[in-house]
């Protein structure tokens, strides 16, 4: 009797228990929360955005289906074209500088010196401070009247007239590029430093004995081994910079005369600022194919580098 009592539940599990043991059910149950979240916060807004861009909706006006008319309209919009060019220029130039400066900083920080940990922590500051706050500080520094930069240049005798940093279209672009580089370098430096630290110092020593000079050691040993990390960091940075909003919004608001608009700020200005919701949606969707292409190319490259 005692034996059957003990072995009973094991030999004959209840239907509910049996269902739990079926891995398909378990997998389904575990996937549901993620699927719901992704669906609710990514898939639904994306589809809604696509539908919106095919409509003529404005604030307060329920629109009708208009096909690709919105896209045709923005294609012929000179501000949109400037925004596209700006976005590529902004992303390209900042990425090059962030990579170069970040790598240089990472190499410096990878040496042994006193207070290394403290310096490494300080390097991260621009990255930690909320972008909006640090950008406001920069805006103040570039302010035509109160600019500390102008003041310094003036005191040092380099200039006799105020430079209108954010009022001149070219200078405004340069200014936001400087701020973006300032903000982005720590991420590059710390990530690349982490990458550098995975490279055994013995390899450098072996290369030194093999007769490689410092720059040859960098080019033949350090750089190829750092490349996978570099590619991932660049990928993240490009995606973020391409879709950047807050920096430009705070610094110039897209001005002067729409000269510094990026995809995101122009989409915001059209959609929310002007109330042309559908056209705004079309502008932000126009970013999608470019980003998609960049990501695909880089992911393919990363895979090639990693399987090499």
């Amino acid at each position, binding site marked *: 009797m005692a034996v059957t009592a003990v072995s009973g539940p094991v030999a004959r599990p209840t239907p509910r228990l049996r269902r739990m043991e079926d891995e398909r059910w378990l997998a389904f149950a575990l996937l549901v929360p993620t699927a719901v979240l992704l669906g609710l916060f990514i898939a639904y807004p994306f589809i809604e955005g696509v539908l919106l861009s095919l409509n003529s909706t404005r604030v307060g006006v329920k629109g009708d289906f208009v096909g690709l008319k919105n896209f045709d309209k923005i294609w012929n919009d000179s501000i949109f074209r400037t925004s596209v060019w700006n976005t590529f220029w902004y992303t390209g130039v900042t990425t090059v500088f962030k990579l170069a400066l970040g790598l240089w900083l990472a190499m410096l920080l990878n040496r042994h010196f006193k207070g290394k940990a403290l310096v490494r922590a300080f390097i991260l500051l621009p990255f930690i401070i909320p972008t909006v706050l640090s950008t406001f500080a920069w805006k103040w520094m570039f302010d035509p009247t109160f600019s500390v930069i102008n003041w310094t240049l003036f005191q040092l005798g380099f200039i006799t007239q105020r430079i209108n940093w954010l009022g001149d279209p070219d200078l405004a672009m340069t200014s936001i590029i400087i701020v973006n580089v300032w903000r982005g370098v720590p991420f590059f430096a710390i990530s690349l430093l982490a990458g550098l630290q995975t490279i055994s110092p013995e*390899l450098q020593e072996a290369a030194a004995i*093999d*007769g490689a*000079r410092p720059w040859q050691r960098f080019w*033949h040993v350090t750089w190829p081994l750092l490349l996978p990390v570099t590619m991932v960091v660049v990928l993240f940075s490009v995606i973020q910079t391409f879709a950047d909003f807050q920096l430009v919004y705070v610094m110039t608001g897209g001005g002067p005369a729409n000269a510094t608009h990026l995809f995101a700020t122009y989409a915001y200005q059209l959609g929310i600022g002007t109330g042309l919701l559908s056209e705004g949606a079309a502008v932000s969707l126009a970013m999608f194919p470019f980003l998609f292409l960049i990501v695909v190319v880089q992911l393919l490259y990363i895979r090639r580098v990693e399987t090499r």
Partner: protein
Amino acid sequence: MALVSIRSVNKVYDGNVHAVKDVSLEIRDKEFMVFVGPSGCGKTTTLRMVAGLESITSGDIVIGDTVVNQLPPMDRDIAMVFQNYALYPHMSVFHNMAFGLKMRKFEKPEIDKRVRDAAAILGIETLLDRKPRQLSGGQRQRVALGRAIVRHPQVFLFDEPLSNLDAKLRVQMRVELKKLHERLGTTAIYVTHDQVEAMTLGDRVVVMKDGIVQQVGEPLELYNTPANKFVAGFIGSPAMNFADVTLAESGGRLWAEAQGLRIGLPDPIARRANGRNGAHATLGIRPEDIHLASPTDADDLCFEAEVEVIEQLGSEIVLDTRVGRSAFVASVDPSLRMKVHDRLKLAMNPARLHLFDAGSEAAI
């Protein structure tokens, strides 16, 4: 091919850690010199100073007839094999071996020939297209050796090259290294913490401790006449037995006495220890120099011991025994039968007794 001369070399880190203390050595042309010692003894630092990877605080290092103190590693005409192989992970075996030649601007056909020759010597011709991660530990070790030998350097430097291999492979690679050295005849400096490696590979062996050279000599010289207690205990396996004894003169002879132990010191040692009556000293005897006493053994070399552990190794039996407050390990005839707690009468080989000063630990 060249001699390496290390002259009064010191290494001080950060002004206070004195890692290498006044080391002077001559490594002869074509010699295989092994540096051995416990970790932190300064052997690797010395090697790295020869390589040029570590600066010299004071003294001179001469390779061939050039003082190399200020020369960067690449200009010293040396090749080094690292503990973790240090193969370039993104390069094929061929390119790993060719890298040093490429950096030195050798012609392509010459590079190709040298790499293939080295690969043939090491038996890795079929691996030339592989990446290091596709190789086993032993194969990586061979590639690292190959990278060193393609350059035909004046001196090979080895930094514990076998310590990452499993025991069986280590023995095999040890033999191959020995053969390779005989074949190439290049001067070699080899660092290890494994005294068996040191004894089997070295033409001569340097024993280091705390940055100081304890003794330099041929392997058997170190084994037979260790300069001090440290060398005596470090060289040989199982390690030499030590017993704290008091020297006592009686009946015209000198005796080493401890609880349960009274050994009559044979003449050469007794003469060297003359005048130390009543002094403390350390008596040393290797396990293989202790045997089960037979009627022919003189009584003054015998002692009674209690068996504590019996280790059957097949070719010998290693006994851990206790004599008063001292412990003795004895390696005895494998045909003997005994049990734990047996009391045995053991005898020491008088020609193989060692005596060390209790204070300085130097051999008497």
